């Protein structure tokens, strides 16, 4: 055994200075010597996501760990590998001027507004302990307000055993781990339900799907709840963890490129439609066109761009191609025009565009009812 220990330094990759990849919470993981709570002063979702990104890339956690507290103006955030057109009503978001962002961690789609609190727990990889963080939040809420709070097997925080008040996601890299969660304090639930409506059907892909759940606000029926008090309660519970001498207190943080060099570039990357829409896993969308004798059309999309538009003949049509089928039922249609959609950006009203092209109505076909490029407010 000792010879193996001697041999180990030579197998350590030069890039790895410290820390091993933690596979589970271990009591032996070193405790941090200092803890801070950062309160972001920005309400811009791209800025805050960029700040989260910046911190995990540039900070070496382990001895000094961090809780980042942030809130965003109304927006929707999807998980790393999700399909925005399947998860949200993109037209509504555009009409309401609400940005759509894609985060780096996994998980499902969430609606944010100023009544929603975001908490990000940063630590070294071997200190990553999702369950401990969730229980910390649950304890703070129970002790402060006596809420009936539980943590379920999906790592959701439930109020009264049934209502989801929090969703959780995490990202693990070589040396660092971050775990973030949302907390519904006083969210506009009408806006939430409207934004998370799914108007499109017939989308098939391997993208991760959200699991809808009934939600509730902590403030419902608890008038003494306010955002400031919740932040104070959770922050103090966090800072107390490693003993009094470890607390470095609360710190207001202004996420600017001056204080965080490189932040602006990270923010631009997150706001880029090539990231928000272009990172969508390959999918197909199949729909019927009522105005074209109910012909079925399948659109394939890769990286947010249309790669094929094919009419589908019905199952019993014995070797007839889609185009031939369309010509047979709609002699005046222009199925060959469908090829012009290839290479275009996919958007939610693809059915209308396809129909317009097929019927030969030019002019309005090539402009999507703009549900893209929704950048920071």
């Amino acid at each position: 055994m000792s010879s193996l220990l001697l041999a180990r330094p030579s197998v350590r990759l030069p890039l790895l200075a410290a820390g091993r990849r933690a596979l589970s919470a271990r009591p032996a993981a070193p405790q941090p010597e200092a803890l801070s709570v950062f309160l972001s002063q920005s309400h811009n979702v791209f800025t805050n996501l960029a700040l989260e990104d910046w911190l995990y890339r540039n900070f070496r956690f382990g001895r000094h760990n961090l809780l980042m507290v942030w809130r965003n103006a109304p927006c929707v955030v999807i998980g790393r590998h999700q399909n925005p057109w399947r998860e949200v009503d993109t037209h509504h978001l555009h009409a309401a001027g609400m940005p759509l962002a894609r985060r780096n961690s996994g998980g499902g789609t969430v609606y944010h507004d100023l009544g929603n609190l975001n908490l990000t727990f940063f630590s070294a990889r071997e200190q990553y302990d999702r369950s401990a963080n969730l229980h910390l939040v649950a304890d703070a809420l129970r002790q402060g307000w006596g809420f009936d709070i539980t943590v379920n097997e999906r790592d959701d925080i439930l109020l009264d055993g049934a209502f989801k008040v929090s969703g959780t996601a995490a990202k693990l890299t070589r040396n660092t781990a971050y775990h973030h969660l949302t907390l519904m304090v006083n969210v506009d639930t009408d806006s939430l339900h409207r934004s998370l409506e799914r108007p499109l059907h017939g989308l098939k892909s391997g993208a991760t799907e959200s699991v809808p759940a009934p939600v509730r606000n902590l403030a419902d029926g608890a008038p003494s709840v306010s955002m400031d008090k919740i932040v104070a309660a959770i922050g103090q519970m966090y800072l107390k963890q490693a003993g009094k001498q470890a607390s470095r207190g609360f710190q207001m943080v202004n996420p600017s490129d001056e204080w965080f060099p490189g932040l602006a570039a990270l923010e631009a990357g997150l706001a880029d439609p090539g990231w928000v829409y272009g990172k969508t896993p390959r999918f197909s969308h199949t729909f019927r066109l009522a105005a074209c004798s109910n012909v079925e059309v399948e659109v394939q999309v890769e990286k947010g761009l249309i790669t094929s538009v094919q009419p589908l003949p019905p199952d019993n049509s014995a070797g007839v191609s889609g185009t031939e089928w369309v010509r047979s039922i709609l002699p005046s249609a222009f199925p060959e025009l469908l090829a012009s959609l290839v290479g275009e950006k996919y958007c939610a009203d693809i059915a209308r565009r396809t129909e317009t092209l097929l019927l030969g109505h030019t002019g309005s076909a090539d402009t999507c009812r703009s549900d893209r490029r929704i950048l920071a407010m």
Partner: protein
Amino acid sequence: MASVGVRAVCALRTFTPTCFSRLQNGLSRNFQFAVQRNLSVSHRVFADLKYTEQHEWVRLDGAVGTVGITAKAAESMGDLVYVEIAEPGLEVDQGDECGSVESVKAVSDIYAPVSGKITDRNTDLSDTPELVNQDPYGEQGWLFKIELSKPEELDALMTEEQYTAFITEE
């Protein structure tokens, strides 16, 4: 070459994966790089796999290495719901991020265990990412193939025994 020896010895027996691997264990001490492998074996960890501290393995076949994550990593992540690997053609250095895997629990980055050019990735995983959990070392659950630019980097990676010691120390 070693492959001839293997075939000769097994000529009188049914050529089974177990037979092959037992001989392989004996031969691999002397031969740094893996013998041409003709069988796909999915349920045994071979002595000629090399491991990184990020719980990835590399299996060399000529100049091309196949890379995946270990059973321990797959088990700790839980069922994978999405796998993303960089496109073939990308040149990477040892330790560069070249993809990510997502499970219900977290998104975890995948790093290149050696420097080189990515030549192939397992496209089955885009529809069925759980293949990684079912067959992490084999024909179904591998992540990508890489043409090594610095084969000597393999020397510094962990052998099976070193990796086993590494994970049991935790």
